[in-house]
């Protein structure tokens, strides 16, 4: 069989991961988008999304999500999230101040599209946190490989 089957955990873990990881990912997205209505928000959702990738990495022994995200691209996504958050803050200067919630009168409270820039900020934070956590994970795991090769 291919090399992928040698790496990672047992077939049971792999199967369960295959079945659940999509749900975990979707749950993370849900938490991010409903941050202004229900418990959760950009931070918790971002970590959940990152954990879904980490889950794949752990079960299939790395390299699988490496194909989608390299270490470099995660830090780029993270910086993009940061720039987006800062840009939202600076856009407020146009309307009245740093971090002015300039969109909030639109939308009915309690609906998905409401609360002005809060959902946008949630998305920015989730990008930053999710990518950041995954970058930390990848860095710590890749170096481990590098070290064992040395020995």
């Amino acid at each position, binding site marked *: 069989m291919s090399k992928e089957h040698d790496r990672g955990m047992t077939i049971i873990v792999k199967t369960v991961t295959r079945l659940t990881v999509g749900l975990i990912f979707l749950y993370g997205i849900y938490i991010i988008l409903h941050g202004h209505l229900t418990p959760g928000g950009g931070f918790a959702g971002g970590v959940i999304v990152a954990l879904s990738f980490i889950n794949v990495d752990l079960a299939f022994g790395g390299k699988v999500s490496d194909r989608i995200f390299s270490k470099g691209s995660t830090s780029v996504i993270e*910086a*993009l999230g*940061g*720039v987006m958050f*800062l840009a939202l*803050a600076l856009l*407020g200067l146009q309307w009245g*101040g*740093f971090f002015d919630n300039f969109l909030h009168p639109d939308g009915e409270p309690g609906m998905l599209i409401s609360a002005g820039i809060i959902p946008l900020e949630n998305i920015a934070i989730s990008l930053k946190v999710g990518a950041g956590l995954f970058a930390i994970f990848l860095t710590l795991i890749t170096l481990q490989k590098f070290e064992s090769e040395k020995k």
Partner: protein
Amino acid sequence: MITASTIPLFVALPLAGAFLTVLLKRIKGIPDTFGVMVTIGTFVMSVFAVIQLEIGQRIICNIGNWGGFQEVLGKIVGIQLVVDGLTAFMLVVVNLIAFLVAVYSVNYMTRYTEKWQFYSLFLLMLAGMNGVLITGDMFNLFVFVEIASIASYALVAFGTGKRELEASFKYAVMGSIASLLILLGVILLYSNTGTLNMADMTRILAGRDHPALLYFVFALFLAGFGLKAALVPFHAWLPDAHPSAPAPISAMLSGVLIKALGVYVIARVFYNLFGFPHEVSLILMTLGAISMGVGALVALRQWDLKRLLAYSSISQVGFIMLGLGIGTPLAILGALFHLFNHSMFKSLLFLDSGAIEYAAHTRDLKEMGGLAKKMPITNGSTIIGAMSLAGIPPFAGFWSKLIIIVAAVQASHMKLAAWAVLMSIVTIAYVLKAVRFAFLGELKKQFANITEVPAFMRVSLIILALVCLFGGLLLIPDLRNGFLGQAVEVLTRVSGV
């Protein structure tokens, strides 16, 4: 020029610089350019802030446009940023050093890999320090202290050798515990006063007797911020962390980080928030005197140039704390002026030690010797910085030490004054030792073909040397009122001394 809506730029500019450095790291020269441009920008803004402020005036920025609710509730619901005389003074010190260090690093950091990470962390550290200086909110202060601290842990480990990693681990563990103590103190204050805004807290605390809880908060803040300032019982991280960091970062750590996160916050919290109670005055004077002695005496025994300078920093922070502890207007003036001078000459000396390391590849005083002929600019600037540190007239360091000692005599703390004079003499001794072994004497064979350092490094050294040389001019009444005077006024106004 500086209005309420431009104050956030002190933080937003370095942050944007750091994020964009990471995004555009592939393009050659981008990190250096961003580093230098951003620090020029914040430095110019801080100078404008000093020029624009009148004595006793402050500029307040309400973040998120929540200022209007102040009238409704009588309380502040959002976060406020405040720039007053003391803040403006500290902003000038921090951003001037940051600018010179950024210029210096263009050449120096070519010795290390991954320059973009250096500039990104450097800008984050600057953003953290500026954030600490301009914030008017207790919890926000904690958040920015953490940004600056984590960036500095990483920068200490930048060389990723054994020493660097170990020093960084020690520093990171002690620093995180200090941060937790600070956070605990902030929570207790919140629980007692029901607000996080510093001005509100001052109003609430001033109107009644101090409850016993507040003394626990004093202890927590003294331990937490005292650790960031490397006061003596909490100084263990500094002599390892400063020598391990790359020279520009040693200059930043010793020159401004321990002052922005430690000394400034202690002054701000104990003078403005708590109204400078008598017990704190005693504790600050005691800790200051002990730091002065321990730092100076241990520095005398060091043979590693950067380690010697690190212990000297502990000793000089002791001088500043002594001035703050005495608490008369003259003593505060001396303390703040010494803070300014120490930032300048200690950064200069660390950059000089970096220049020597860059050219001669050693930090051990026993291996050096005779470098004066080969490196005239480094030699000249080191001597100016060292004389300022030793307190030789007419260099700037002399005047600030003189003011502190005179203030101690005036406040009839004769023993402290005598102790300060004694420690100044010890300072002269270790400074002479460093200069003698590094620059004078026979030129060793292995240094036959070393050259002076590259252009960018020279520029920084020359500018800092000039500041040390003419720093005493800041005491001329016109200049003093505009710069140091407005900072002193902030601290004396509320304490009512």
